[in-house]
């Protein structure tokens, strides 16, 4: 294995070839590399190649969660999502671009069970432990998407700019299918450069977790009100960040025997969030 540290976007693009992996803060990728869940010939450290910092409604993908959570210019939902995402140590290194691309916390996947998401035929969470797993779109894979930040950006209607296109954040993600089990639609080597986050009239992010200060979301609820209406999005509830039409759409969930409790929590958090963003 080799590591490259390009100092420009052009050099990073040239370095990101087959068999390489992009590294930003490292909080997600370093353990995955060590456990050989992600295998690569070359690590390309992109910290000096992607934009970092906040300019009006534009946020560089290399901006850390710690930098975002103290910035008064960004919407409340995003700031809260960054603050609640992880411990101070992780927020000091983890970037917003990397946060959007993190993999599931499903322990079967993390422990390298030969599960459906790893290319196998079974979802071990379905028959085993699935208290933290998905209640929407949870077959054939019940993994839950952990990103608080993605849920906030989804409610806020953010746009993602990569080195080759712009797309609404909803289109960054895809539900995995039998012949393509990836959770994002990024092409190989495609880099998230920037996020465009419109300023809402009001927004909030509420999170239920096993510990008070930080843990991965059991349920995360983002709400953002703009002149077009109020948008809701969920973290920890589906294999990808989940846009929710309204509270009644919770009735369409397909919880597993051990995680229907998430719907009760979601209902309560949605009501609180709607009160918080009401005019």
């Amino acid at each position: 294995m080799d590591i490259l540290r390009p100092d420009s976007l052009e050099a990073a693009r040239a370095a990101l070839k087959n068999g390489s992996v992009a590294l930003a803060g490292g909080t997600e990728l370093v353990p995955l590399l060590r456990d050989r869940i992600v295998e690569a010939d070359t690590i390309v450290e992109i910290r000096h190649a992607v934009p970092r910092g906040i300019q009006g409604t534009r946020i560089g993908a290399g901006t850390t969660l710690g930098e975002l959570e103290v910035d008064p210019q960004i919407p409340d939902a995003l700031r809260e999502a960054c603050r609640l995402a992880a411990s101070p140590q992780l927020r000091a290194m983890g970037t917003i671009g990397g946060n959007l691309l993190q993999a599931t916390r499903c322990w079967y996947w993390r422990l390298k069970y030969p599960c459906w998401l790893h290319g196998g035929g079974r979802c071990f969470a379905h028959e085993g432990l699935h208290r933290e797993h998905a209640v929407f779109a949870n077959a054939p894979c019940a993994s839950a998407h952990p990103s608080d930040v993605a849920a906030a950006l989804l409610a806020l209607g953010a746009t993602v700019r990569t080195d080759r296109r712009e797309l609404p954040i909803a289109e960054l993600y895809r539900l995995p299918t039998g012949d393509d089990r990836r959770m994002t639609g990024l092409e190989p080597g495609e880099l998230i450069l920037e996020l465009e986050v419109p300023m809402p009239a009001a927004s909030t992010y509420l999170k239920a977790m096993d510990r008070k200060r930080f843990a991965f979301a059991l349920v995360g609820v983002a709400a953002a009100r703009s002149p077009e209406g109020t948008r809701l999005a969920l973290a920890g509830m589906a294999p990808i960040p989940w846009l929710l039409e309204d509270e009644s759409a919770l009735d369409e969930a397909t919880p597993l025997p051990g995680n229907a409790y998430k719907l009760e929590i979601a209902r309560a958090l949605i009501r609180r969030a709607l009160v918080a963003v009401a005019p």
Partner: protein
Amino acid sequence: MKIELSVNGERKEADVWPGESLLFTLREKLGLPGSKNACEQGECGSCSVLLDEKLVCSCLVLTAQAQGHEIVTVEGIAEDDRLHRVQEAFVQTGAVQCGFCTPGLIVATVDLLAHRPEPSDDEIREALSGNLCRCTGYQKIFDAVRLAARA
């Protein structure tokens, strides 16, 4: 690959695997076992060090990422032969039980007091939230932080 690091104000050189964590290099290559290796997932904070004056988990940072940056480990906290006032406060309040979380908590507390010399209880909780004590000795750890802030 050869990497040059600045650790506790000294220049060090290490031969590392590109995917090697800073924690591994500190402990196994540079003879600095103060930073502890527990979860290796960023959950417990026992490997906390300062990287350019920012508190990070050294298990989640590649050594290669740290090249050209200033690293301070728990070994670099004391001044000459005297314990740092945070270390002194941990001793005095009995905030050390099995001791495994202590180095990370010392570094996290030094970082907190550098930014907030008189932290509120809530700020202490937030600042130490990334450090787990498996003996659950949080009350005395709290007392130690308050004592160090007053000292």
